[in-house]
């Protein structure tokens, strides 16, 4: 089960390690000891929010503003949990960790993969989530330690995240085979881009969920 989880989580590695390295490199510019980059990867574990934090820290922003900004930046994750209400099992440490580890990438992967026969779903999810976070912490640490020495040219490696989402989009199509959610998602993205470009992700997710709930209710009242 562990080997299968490593294999299926490798695409996340290709996204997280270079992105984590980029974070570590930038974080080192602040002049703190390197292990704080690792610490952020371990207890905050949020890509976009950690990059945002670099700006906050160098500006010396207030703690309340930082708490609010982090909450709004990550509030899309509120909608991610809806897909896992039943599949994370009973309340225990494992479930608390699976919730903690719900990043864009793990969400995308866990909602797309099929758990192999004979595997306990919650444990399989746990391994994948653990490996994903390990890749992220590894990247953050490498970047922070090697800030002075790193010579490998990683320009363009950020495309790995785009490629991962494109691959999972294709896999979603193979699973779902209904055009409607894809169209709703696309139109919501365009609306959000035009009107709310600074909060595009969250707005698009809220518009799309509101739209399908609305459509479902209309359909329900007709039949």
């Amino acid at each position: 089960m562990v080997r299968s989880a490593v294999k299926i989580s490798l695409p996340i590695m290709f996204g997280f390690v270079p992105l984590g390295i980029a974070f570590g490199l930038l974080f080192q510019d602040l002049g703190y000891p390197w292990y704080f980059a690792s610490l952020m990867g371990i207890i905050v574990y949020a890509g976009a929010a950690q990059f945002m934090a670099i700006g906050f820290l160098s500006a010396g922003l207030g703690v309340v503003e930082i708490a609010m900004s982090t909450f709004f930046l990550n509030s899309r994750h509120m909608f991610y949990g809806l897909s896992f209400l039943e599949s994370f099992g009973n309340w225990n440490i494992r479930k608390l960790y699976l919730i903690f580890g719900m990043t864009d990438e793990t969400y995308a992967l866990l909602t797309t993969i099929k758990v192999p026969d004979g595997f306990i779903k919650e444990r399989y999810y746990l391994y994948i989530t653990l490996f994903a976070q390990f890749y992220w912490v590894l990247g953050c640490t490498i970047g922070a330690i090697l800030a002075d020495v790193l010579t490998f040219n990683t320009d363009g490696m950020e495309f790995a995240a785009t490629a991962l989402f494109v691959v999972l989009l294709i896999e979603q199509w193979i699973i779902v085979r209904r055009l409607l959610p894809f169209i709703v998602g696309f139109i919501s993205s365009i609306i959000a881009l035009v009107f709310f470009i600074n909060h595009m992700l969250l707005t698009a997710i809220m518009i799309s969920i509101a739209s399908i709930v609305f459509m479902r209710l209309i359909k329900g009242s007709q039949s």
Partner: protein
Amino acid sequence: MNELDYLIIVIIVMALSTYFTRLIPFVLFSPGRESSILNYVAKSTPPMVMMILVVYMLKDINDQSYELIYTLIALAITIGFQVYKRNALLSIVAGTAAYMFFVQI
């Protein structure tokens, strides 16, 4: 408050804030109480979110430069491999390698 204290407080605050966003749905909705509308939302969210994430990743492409062309090539390679080989890792590595090649030359 010295600088390290500030950093540690910021990290703790961000950790709590992030965890809070991820925890909310699990606290608000208890499983088992079947709600058809919630089920429908849960089932439709992954394809919608995946679509949105792809648009989000591509939104900053500069369409006045070569970036548009090589992004399209890298996307075509990724999609081509995924449709014909169904191997996620291969598709991602191939697309990313192509993209890095164009960025760095």
